[in-house]
């Protein structure tokens, strides 16, 4: 795939791994870097990038998975909406298996709810147009990457006066989550890889205040192996040179000021909620979006009576600590025992982007010895004989 495959070139990856090792040596101390976005976590696991890094460079997987941080009560609300009479409930495939207190949307579908997987919120609007006699609700979730798509869809619905269409809005914001992590005590972090696609919308400027206040470097990074390795290298270089700045590795997409039509649509359609509950992190101030009063007709929360009951996560689940990077997935007592991707107890096991699900799925720290696999090939250029490695 053009502009994807090139960024997975093995020779170039090996080159960046060499450069990272070189900088890590110069730095001569262990560092912990957090990739904020779940999409970046996914790339790291899919391509086994952790195994290519020096021992002293540790990656901590951030809270940037909007499915993972969705509190159970909101899933229950989604199911209540899907079970309204005549309802067509449209959602991204990601949310289908997420468990609430009353099971998942997939189970609601099995019980008779008309739940449809769509690729775009525009497809949900099309469903409303092709089924004018039935209410259609779209399950809006995601960070600032996805929120403009939903905002633009609501604007299109308003233009078309599509009265049977509304959105159940659960959009969240990245910067408040970062601030929460930085304020939390006991967190050892030396820098952040900023979420590239969120930043295509919000730009790199919003990170400047974070960098100024907390003195942690941020490099906005892309999603391919070369993007992530370059971002790690850029963070290490800042640490070596004693600098602390916002830098932009993903400059093929991200502009400092962001995308102005997208930001304008966000400002027009949404307002910032005073509080929003994040699964595992708790209630964070000014961290979520609601639909603005001018578009109340398209707000499912206002059109339908929702149970909106908070429901606690399983007491053995330690997702909160994992989302904050204080605990590794395999250090949780439920990991792989009570909690698996088939039967997730907590947020991080739910989505394929969640740190626990990623570790479980790709085997790092899972049934095999913790972190044995990622650490095995410290040198990317050398390809050790696999059989002898496995015979251990």
């Amino acid at each position, binding site marked *: *795939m*053009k*502009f*994807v495959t*090139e*960024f997975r*070139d093995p020779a*170039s990856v090996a*080159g*960046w791994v*060499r*450069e990272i090792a*070189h900088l890590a040596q110069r730095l001569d101390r262990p560092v912990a870097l957090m990739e904020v*976005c*779940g*999409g970046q976590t996914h790339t790291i696991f899919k391509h086994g990038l952790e195994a290519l890094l020096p021992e002293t460079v540790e990656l901590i997987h951030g809270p*940037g*998975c*909007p*499915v993972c941080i969705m509190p159970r009560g909101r899933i229950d609300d989604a199911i209540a909406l899907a079970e309204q009479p005549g309802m067509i409930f449209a959602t*991204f495939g*990601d949310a289908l298996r997420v468990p609430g207190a009353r099971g998942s949307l997939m189970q609601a579908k099995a019980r008779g709810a008309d739940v449809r997987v769509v*690729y*775009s*919120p*525009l*497809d949900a609007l099309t469903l409303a147009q092709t089924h004018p006699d039935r209410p259609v609700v779209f399950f809006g*979730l*995601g*960070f600032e*990457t*996805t929120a*403009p*798509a939903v905002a*633009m869809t609501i*604007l*299109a619905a308003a233009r078309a006066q599509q009265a049977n269409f509304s959105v159940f809005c659960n959009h969240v914001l990245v910067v408040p989550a970062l601030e929460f992590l930085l304020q939390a005590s006991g967190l050892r972090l030396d820098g952040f890889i900023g*979420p*590239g*696609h*969120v930043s*295509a*919308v919000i730009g790199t400027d919003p990170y400047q205040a974070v960098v100024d206040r907390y003195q942690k470097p941020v490099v906005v990074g*892309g*999603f391919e192996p*070369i*993007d992530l390795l*370059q971002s790690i290298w850029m963070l290490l270089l800042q640490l070596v040179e004693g600098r602390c700045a916002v830098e932009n*590795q993903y*400059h*093929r*997409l*991200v*502009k400092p000021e962001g*995308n*102005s*039509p*997208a930001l304008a*649509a966000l400002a027009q359609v949404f307002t910032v909620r005073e509080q929003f509950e994040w699964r595992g992190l708790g209630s964070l101030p000014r961290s979520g979006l609601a639909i603005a009063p001018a578009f109340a007709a398209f707000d499912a929360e206002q059109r339908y009576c929702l149970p909106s009951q908070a429901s606690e996560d399983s007491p053995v689940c330690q997702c909160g600590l994992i989302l904050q990077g204080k605990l590794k997935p395999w250090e949780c007592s439920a990991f792989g025992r009570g909690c698996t991707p088939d039967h997730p107890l907590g947020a991080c096991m739910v989505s394929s*982007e969640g740190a626990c699900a990623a570790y479980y799925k790709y085997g790092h720290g899972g049934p095999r010895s913790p972190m044995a696999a990622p650490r095995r090939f410290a040198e990317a250029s050398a390809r050790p004989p696999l059989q002898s490695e496995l015979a251990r």
Partner: protein
Amino acid sequence: MCLAVPGQVVAIVDGDQQLATVDLSGVRRSVSLACLVTPDRPIEQWVGRWVVVHAGFALEELDVAAATETLTWIDRLTTPA
């Protein structure tokens, strides 16, 4: 949350709705250019350009020169192995 893939705008589907066909390496889909079209850059000017698509919307233009720069950066680093 952020699965977005690069593709090239190949045709306008509906100028009023700001919809265009984007070719994602052989997979075609009608995509909204609402985040890209401005009075300065009407939809006609986007045909042939590379964009990154997320959830049916072109999120931002892909700067081809910048992509090349990212790819060739390693060649300019001269740390001895």
